[in-house]
């Protein structure tokens, strides 16, 4: 059982980090970023190239992934989402744009990095073994880094100037604008930050699960689930959603395995029931 809980915690940490970037972009711009998973994949491939192929140290690769995705995110916001948000009658229209961006990134990644599954050497060797618990050291490292990044992100949003501006933006766009917040600038920073987080997770996880060009879409969908559980557009919700989903998978796969392949069916059904009872997730904005 300890093993199951440890698995769940580890899964939860990585899920929460994936969901954070998605929820940030949603909170700021009401854009459901279908391309989030593709950004994760791109981050993974940048690390693969720098750490796996060129043999540079892993922190360099991690930084490079973050920077690349931050820039990509900023460009996508400035040249694609901003004009479309401004001109479309219904803000849901950005979903088509987000999906198109997802297809585009998929295509670029497939052409640049090929169709094969890629992996990199482990960052730390060895496995922690005790009577109840087995955990490879690299997972522990990645889990700790993920939690540290989550904490840093929360602190940044709480206390830094851009963080406060972004929170104001998320609460009420018009009011924030009236109070002198540069909406365009902070939307761009927020989008860049969201993309950067996606790149960071991709970079961290490539050391454990590798990466391949096709997993972007499924990752996005999983991230949507976590965001829904916790409540869209709320940082705390994304973190809670990530850990809840991680734990449900871990426990469900152990407890329900006797009954065949119904774990995910149960998880999804529970999610639907839960959202019917609490239409805004655990702590979401009332509109959603």
């Amino acid at each position, binding site marked *: 059982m300890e093993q199951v809980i440890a698995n769940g915690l580890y899964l939860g940490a990585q899920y929460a980090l994936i969901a954070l970037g998605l929820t940030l972009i949603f909170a700021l711009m009401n854009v459901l970023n279908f391309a989030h998973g593709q950004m994760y994949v791109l981050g993974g491939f940048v690390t693969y190239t720098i750490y796996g192929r060129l043999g540079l140290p892993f922190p360099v690769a991690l930084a490079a992934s973050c920077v690349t995705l931050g820039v990509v995110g900023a460009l996508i916001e400035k040249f694609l989402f901003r004009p479309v948000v401004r001109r479309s009658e219904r803000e849901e229209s950005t979903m088509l744009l987000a999906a198109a961006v997802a297809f585009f990134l998929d295509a670029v990644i497939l052409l640049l990095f090929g169709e*094969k599954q890629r992996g990199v050497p482990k960052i730390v060797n060895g496995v922690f073994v005790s009577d109840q618990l087995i955990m490879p050291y690299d997972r522990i490292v990645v889990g700790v880094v993920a939690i540290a990044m989550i904490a840093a992100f929360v602190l940044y949003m709480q206390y830094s100037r851009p963080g406060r501006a972004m929170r104001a933006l998320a609460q009420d766009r018009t009011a924030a604008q009236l109070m002198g917040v540069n909406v365009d600038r902070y939307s761009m920073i927020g989008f860049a930050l969201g993309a950067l987080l996606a790149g960071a997770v991709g970079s961290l996880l490539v050391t454990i699960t590798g990466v391949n060009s096709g997993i972007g879409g499924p990752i996005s969908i999983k991230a949507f689930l976590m965001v829904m559980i916790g409540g869209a557009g709320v940082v705390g919700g994304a973190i809670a959603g990530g850990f809840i989903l991680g734990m449900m998978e871990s426990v469900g796969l152990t407890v329900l395995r006797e009954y065949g392949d119904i774990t995910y069916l149960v998880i999804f059904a529970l999610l639907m029931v839960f959202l019917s009872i609490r239409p805004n997730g655990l702590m979401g904005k009332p509109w959603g």
Partner: protein
Amino acid sequence: MISRRIALKSMALGAASALAIAGMLASAQAENKKLKIGFVGVTSGPAAAWGTSNVRSMQVRADWLNEKGGVKIGDDTYDIEIVTFDDQKDPKRAIAGMEKMAEQGIHYVVGPNVDDGAAAVRPVAESKGIIYFPYSFPKALYTPPASNAVLGMVANYQSAPAIYKYLKENKGVTKVAFVAANESDPLSQRDGGVEAAKALGLEVVAQNDTYPNDTRDFTPVLTPIVQLKPDLLVLSGVAPANAPLLIRAARELGYEGLISAETAQDATVLQEGAGELANGFISVGGASTPEIRSPEMEEFIDRYTKKYGEYNDESNTKVYALEYIVETLKANPAAIDNVEEYKKTMETFSAPNPFVKEGTLKYVGMTSFGQKRQISVPMVVTEFKDGKFDTLFVGEVD
């Protein structure tokens, strides 16, 4: 002066004759007819690897044959042109792809790569007179009254009994656990594997465990299975991208038994994803290993690597479909636009296999399907060792 004139003359002559020869060559090239061979399958999205290795091996082999002056079928020489269609793993698109092939006058199509696509294109293929070579195992596709599909590889219900028998006899395996993705192809293959294991008197300790195909972390899935301590963990229908992740997760959880798969895998992917943890992994690793391959196969791998930067071991099997089509057409030129002729030829066809040191190309499948609707490729069971596949044994399907 004279000598100079002669020199000029001879130079002009030389140039003219060179031009003429070039022209003749060019016209000879231009005279070659085109033989279009189709591909309908998945080359984008999460399963892109399957179709991509198909397309690339077809392309490499076609270029190679064309470079040698084309293929002589009957009285005509043909250049081979590969027409590809990406169905995005969507059966509805696969039908559209097959219709496109028919419209282009193509009678021989490689693919689709998955069960639902292969089933969906059947009506089109039968009404439009197309023989297709799916990489999908359901027997209904190949047993009468179906007659236009030819299985392009060794099915898992053919390889699994051989592998389990070998492991039972040589490695003392008694307890087997199965794990599969919760999609049609892997689940069907798991059921086939469970049946084969039970028939051999092996104890099946886990057969209901599944994972979504997009799982990235397999520790939660494997934790309960590893605790059952099976001797053999079978990864049914595992996608090449998932195999290293599963192996790594199982080993890191302390699993010490054997791991096997009945689908083709790629050595580089295994090495990058699981490293030395993948050592000892048993799979029907394509239809080729250094021990049995011919110089022709070496050259194919070489050309593939040159053209695309990196080889894919799945292509060991996937190079065969095009070869069978071309060789069968050579044996019976009337089949070039008449699949009924092709079907007749399949009954008796036999030709030397260029890709192995010794072997023949022939159609098989009597035991499994009651008719010859499968291409014979060497069933090479391999063991992964330090980035390479070592041959355990070579079998054959009848």
